[in-house]
């Protein structure tokens, strides 16, 4: 797993063409598979990447024409031969958008730049529709064409924005799904790690937000956690994969307030000990905006889970969790108290 990455932006270019990529199980034998969320999943039924590439080449063709023969293009479109500088500017814009779409891993922002460009062009063509323009007939045709292209751009941009999550893992791609992986190394054996994690009573000891985990039966459990803003969050989860001494996977059940799915793999490390690898999908209420905000305040699940893993390691290796909560200090300033409140430092 060390050389492959399923995180967008780190690995190979995500395959927008095939949404049915095999689950990451195919990458290594020990990896538990991900199960779909219990809610409808919207999948694009269209070859979005192909459409985006087409729009990219169109941009490059238009941009090249505008740069080489600005007056010719002005005549053709009905916009007039009077503003070659302006037309060249449009050409540069189109070339940038085209190269962005074709070269970048995520074409969505460049498609949005095309949308903005289309609107600018429509505004310019509107001035050419006036009765004083002898070529206003051509301008009207151009206007209709650009409007049509605008519609295609908007469609492609929204589709690719929506599905920029993690297309490599089938079945869990939802509009607001976020995905991350994190890992930590410990001197304890995979069996010790598994045994400690599998005992649900241990989980609140190192998961800082979790207040209690109650087993409902062999596979299902009820979770109560502190919410980031105050009110408690509760959900039911089930274990979807249980390989003693090796791995665990779980997902939340229907109607969970915070739906997520995750897995933890206890991988035997070279030279003894264990590398603990945790992956998680989650859908933050409010989507990417709240996710980014949470990240700034270090309240996002990725930072939280990373700290949870550290505490897991500390408990296992030392029997306690390093802390300074409750130690004496002098008088804290407003900043000092705020830093503490947001748990940016562990000490008060």
């Amino acid at each position, binding site marked *: 797993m060390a050389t492959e990455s399923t995180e967008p932006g780190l690995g190979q270019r995500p395959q927008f063409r095939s949404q049915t990529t095999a689950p990451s199980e195919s990458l290594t034998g020990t990896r538990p598979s991900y199960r779909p969320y219990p809610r409808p999943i919207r999948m694009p039924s269209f070859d979005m990447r192909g459409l985006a590439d087409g729009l990219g080449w169109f941009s490059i063709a238009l941009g090249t024409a505008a740069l080489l023969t600005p007056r010719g293009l002005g005549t053709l479109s009905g916009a007039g031969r009077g503003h070659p500088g302006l037309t060249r500017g449009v050409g540069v814009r189109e070339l940038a958008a085209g190269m962005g779409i074709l070269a970048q891993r995520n074409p969505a922002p460049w498609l949005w730049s095309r949308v903005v460009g289309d609107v600018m062009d429509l505004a310019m063509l509107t001035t050419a529709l006036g009765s004083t323009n002898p070529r206003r007939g051509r301008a009207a045709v151009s206007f209709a064409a650009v409007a049509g292209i605008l519609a295609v751009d908007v469609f492609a941009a929204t589709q690719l924005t929506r599905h920029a999550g993690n297309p490599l893992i089938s079945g869990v791609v939802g509009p607001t799904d976020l995905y991350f992986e994190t890992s930590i190394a410990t001197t304890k054996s995979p069996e010790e790690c598994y045994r400690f994690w599998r005992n649900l009573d241990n989980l609140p000891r190192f998961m800082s937000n979790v207040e209690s985990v109650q087993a409902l039966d062999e596979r299902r459990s009820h979770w109560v956690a502190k919410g980031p803003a105050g009110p408690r969050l509760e959900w039911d989860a089930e274990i979807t994969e249980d390989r003693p001494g090796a791995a665990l996977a779980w997902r939340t059940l229907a109607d969970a307030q915070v739906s997520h799915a995750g897995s933890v793999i206890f991988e035997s490390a070279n030279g003894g000990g264990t590398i603990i690898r945790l992956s998680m999908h989650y859908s933050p209420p409010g989507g990417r905006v709240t996710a980014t905000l949470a990240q700034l305040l270090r309240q996002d699940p990725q930072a939280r889970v990373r700290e949870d893993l550290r505490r897991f390691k500390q408990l296992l290796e030392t029997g306690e969790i*390093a*802390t300074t909560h409750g130690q*004496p200090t002098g008088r804290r300033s407003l900043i000092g108290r705020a830093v503490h409140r947001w748990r*940016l*430092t562990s000490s008060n």
Partner: protein
Amino acid sequence: MKANVWYGKEQLRVEDVPDPRILNPRDAIVRITSTAICGSDLHIYGGFIPGMLAGDIIGHEFMGEVVEVGSGVRNLKVGDRIVNPFPISCGSCFFCQRKEFSLCENSNPNAWAAEKLWGHSPAGLFGYSHLLGGYAGGQAQYARIPFADVGPIKVPQSLPDEQVLFLSDVFPTGYMAAEQCNLQPGDTVAVWGCGPVGLFSIKSALLLGAGRVIAIDRFPERLRKATEAGAEGLNYEQVDVLEVLKDLTGGRGPDACIDAVGLEGHSHGMFGVYDRMKQGLMLETDRPPSLRQALKACRNGGTVSIPAVYGGFLDKVPFGSIVNRALTLKSGQTHVQRYLGPLLQLIEEGKIDPSFIVTHTLPLEQAPEGYRMFRDKEDSCVKVVLKPWLEPPTLDAEPQPKTHLH
């Protein structure tokens, strides 16, 4: 209890704070009998250490008597007299198993912040910023010691505080600096800075077989102490250090160089002005004139050992010297726990008496004055020991509020 609390650059106040208590099973509480101001504490005093918060109790060199132990501490009992190492180490992680205690993976609760700055997090330290754990320090009447079953060493009542206190930091730090030079019998070692760490580096280098130690400073009293420790002194205000070092070694340069100065290095001329300006404008965090000089002075294939504290980003460091002249660079916060036993033995055998560095002993109440004095090298100050339970002298009893031991 009374504690020395940091409130900002050059703002220290000794004030009443709550007593520490046991927070984890492997904690112990110690009643501090002696604590010292470290050269690295001066970087905190000067506001150069990132991650400090107003209200932090500082200090990391301390010793005392155990007054309470947690349920997980079996090797210590109430009444034991102990010296405490400044890094906090769990004893069971990957690094502790390799005896690299200052790299403990389990003792920094703010590891994420250290990772942002340095890539990975080292161990938590006492009283040395929230990047290194935010633990309350030992310039106080009591301190809580986490992982007390791993760190502290019991010391016999027969040895006075001043002889064993420096096992907490500066003695092992100077020793590790010399040990890392991989000395061969007869080697020549140059030491920049004749503060406590530099002085212990000199003594340790000689103990480890160095044939000749050259000490570089500008304060006559520090150079005198260095000469007493067995080194030859060089005053860099009077001679061209690089020229003289070449001269003394037949043009080859010292076999090993030890930089015991750190991020507030002083230098003359253009570079001195340049560093002060860049540091003032926050374009560099550290002023490294001694490191630049050590890298230039060291012989081809030699070792440059850096016990000095550098915190962040350094400028105009001649890295080409390292590459083209095959230098070895050694550094690190001291793995104090590794050295406690062997060095205590050296003290007990009378091979070294670490109390030679002490110049001032003050009541804890006068810590702020001690810091200022130490920073300004006023009154030939080399090392200040603070006594947390000593009443400050009343004005009519003694007009001069400091006691001179040496």
